[in-house]
């Protein structure tokens, strides 16, 4: 993984070279010599159409839509594959070159069904945009178009061969970014297709492509050839309201564009400014958002029966005042403000002479040692604010066994968001495939739940959670809190940068964040004194 990281950072590292003067359609631009021509001109506001070129992938020059004419060069050149030279005179939008692009477009569309009404990519499809801008309204192709049925190639990935324009982006992405050699171009000429070929290094050959970046594959495919099963036919792209925020999935805190509809998150997409915020996001974060709007807990509960909030908070204050030995589990899914409030409470309790042990990790995996990354993006800290909790020293247990032992001994256990989806478990079909990571599909399967069961610790557990599951029924007190996407807040990523999230979903009125819960405990003051 390290070598992968290095590879990637090498590629990402901005190469800065001398400035070169070039002329595009008679207009002079000063651009960086080391940059790719398409990128350099894009910065200046000149958009050269391209399909196969991607700033983070190697250049192959396969689609030929980026053709340009260079003065002194007899043939048209592919812009993506042309080094910038000082004094270069480019004809990018002249009559001749536009005609050439029209020709390329016609070739690309030979086998393309243009079935936009059926295609999930419609609305964000580059081919659709360009054929609107550059293409002909009619086709001269009279022969039968090839027709290969849609096929499932990944655990969450479909390929529609007819739509594929053979730009090779998917193959390059898997090889260069993900680091697996599992997609191939098979056959030749008119019969060429993209196919999944299990990598030779894999011991158990999986029938389907199964890495953690199948969503990203569908993103980088410039047409609707690669589509995710989890979103297939579920909606259309122009229906969403888009808001930028950060992913809830892990301590990497990738910037994402959330697609929202009917107060639910439909999916995460890469950010609006990928040059700054990163081009890719992983499946683990991307496809685990549906739980945020399902089966929510809105009422305070005492052993499964609904009670009023004042009663619950009063009881919580009493419990805190009486207990001598307290275990606080969690906080990693809460914003810095919330964590600060919790830290203050913990401090006060400690000042009052109580033994308080606080750890934000609640399953065996979270106590990892060594490599902190699952892959080049996904961190092993699967809580967005994990880094901040490390700063707050919320790491009192050596490992999960120590935590389990404490469950038996503590007089009061506070669980803060650690039994809520999508952190502790995820309902429905799991689309993230991270090798080595098992994601429970119900609260009963989580290690913490089982540990609480074995130690018979439910009657002394106060649960701050977002979901109305059986844990909320069993706990002595279940207190509803806002989820990650229902509040804005500051979070600290694994590199120590603070990032601000946005409110994505409207919270139910009166629902408090965990920080507000800590602040609104009526008898909090006497606790410190007692």
């Amino acid at each position: 993984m390290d070598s992968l990281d290095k590879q990637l950072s090498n590629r990402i590292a901005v190469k800065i070279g001398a400035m070169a003067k070039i002329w595009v359609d008679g207009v002079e631009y000063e651009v960086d010599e080391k940059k790719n021509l398409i990128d350099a001109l894009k910065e200046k506001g000149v958009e050269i159409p391209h399909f196969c070129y991607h700033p983070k992938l190697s250049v192959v020059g396969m689609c030929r839509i980026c053709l340009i004419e260079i003065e002194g060069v007899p043939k048209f050149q592919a812009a993506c594959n042309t080094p910038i030279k000082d004094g270069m005179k480019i004809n990018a939008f002249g009559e001749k070159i536009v005609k050439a692009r029209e020709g390329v477009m016609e070739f690309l569309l030979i086998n393309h069904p243009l079935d936009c009404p059926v295609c999930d990519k419609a609305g964000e499809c580059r081919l659709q945009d360009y054929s609107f801008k550059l293409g002909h309204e009619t086709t001269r192709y009279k022969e039968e178009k090839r027709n290969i049925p849609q096929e499932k190639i990944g655990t969450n990935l479909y390929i529609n061969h007819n739509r594929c324009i053979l730009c090779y982006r998917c193959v390059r992405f898997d090889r260069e970014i993900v680091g697996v050699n599992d997609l191939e171009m098979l056959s030749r000429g008119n019969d060429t297709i993209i196919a999944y070929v299990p990598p030779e290094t894999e011991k158990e050959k999986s029938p389907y492509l199964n890495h953690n970046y199948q969503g990203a594959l569908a993103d980088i495919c410039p047409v609707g050839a690669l589509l995710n099963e989890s979103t297939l036919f579920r909606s259309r792209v122009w229906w969403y309201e888009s808001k930028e925020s950060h992913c809830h999935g892990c301590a990497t805190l990738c910037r994402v564009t959330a697609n929202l509809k009917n107060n639910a998150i439909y999916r995460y997409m890469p950010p609006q400014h990928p040059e700054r915020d990163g081009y890719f996001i992983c499946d683990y974060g991307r496809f685990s958002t549906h739980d945020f709007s399902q089966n929510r807990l809105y009422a305070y509960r005492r052993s499964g029966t609904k009670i009023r909030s004042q009663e619950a908070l009063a009881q919580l204050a009493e419990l805190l005042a009486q207990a001598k030995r307290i275990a606080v589990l969690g906080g990693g899914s809460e914003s810095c403000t919330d964590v600060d409030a919790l830290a203050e409470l913990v401090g006060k309790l400690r000042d009052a002479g109580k033994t308080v042990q606080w750890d934000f990790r609640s399953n065996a995996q979270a106590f990892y040692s060594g490599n902190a990354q699952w892959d080049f993006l996904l961190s092993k800290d699967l809580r967005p604010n994990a880094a901040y909790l490390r700063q707050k020293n919320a790491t009192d247990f050596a490992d999960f066994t120590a935590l389990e032992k404490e469950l038996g001994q503590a007089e009061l256990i506070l669980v803060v968001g650690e039994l809520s989806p999508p952190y502790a478990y995820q309902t429905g079909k799991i689309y993230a495939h991270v090798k080595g990571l098992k994601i429970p599909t119900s609260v009963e399967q989580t290690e913490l739940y089982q540990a609480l069961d074995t130690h018979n610790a439910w009657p002394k557990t106060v649960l701050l959670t977002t979901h109305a599951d059986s844990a909320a029924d069993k706990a002595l007190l279940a207190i509803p809190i806002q989820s990650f996407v229902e509040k804005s807040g500051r979070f600290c990523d694994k590199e120590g940068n603070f990032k601000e999230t946005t409110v994505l979903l409207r919270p139910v009125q009166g629902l408090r964040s965990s920080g507000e819960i800590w602040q609104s405990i009526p008898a909090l003051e006497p606790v410190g004194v007692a």
Partner: protein
Amino acid sequence: MATIQVNKKYAFRWYEKFYFMSITAGLWVTLKHFIKSAFLRRMVTVQYPEQKKPLSSRFRGLHRLKRNEKGQERCTACYCCQWVCPADAIHIVAAEVPPERQYLHPEDKYAKVFQVDLLRCIYCGLCEEACPKGAIYLDGGLPLPADSRDALILNKEQMLEPTGGPIIGERL
């Protein structure tokens, strides 16, 4: 404050002040129509719904879903009509075509549920205009009254033209 001066050009004569002449003239029209319809059988009212008047070919009435030349459903659940509908009257659920229905659809996506709420629809015809497949037309004639609200939500079976001969989905 300006006042408008109205010049009454016409002054009633003394016999006109009884309005007898005008009333007789008005009643004569009524009588004429009465005689026409009652004795000469030239009726002005139509005995709807037994009798129907011909509708204009551009008349926007009930929604119809069309089939293509092979008798397959044209609609592919692209949601364009639902998106454009200003009254929010269309409800579609798209799904992948199951193998046993394959012969009914030219594509691999179809409308599992397609409902039009006639109580919401304003018969604007935008859905017809938006459809890229020529699948929906408002050429089903006049909407009939119904005695429950549910009966006024058209489902796919009610709207689909019966299977059989090719139907050119274009308006005449």
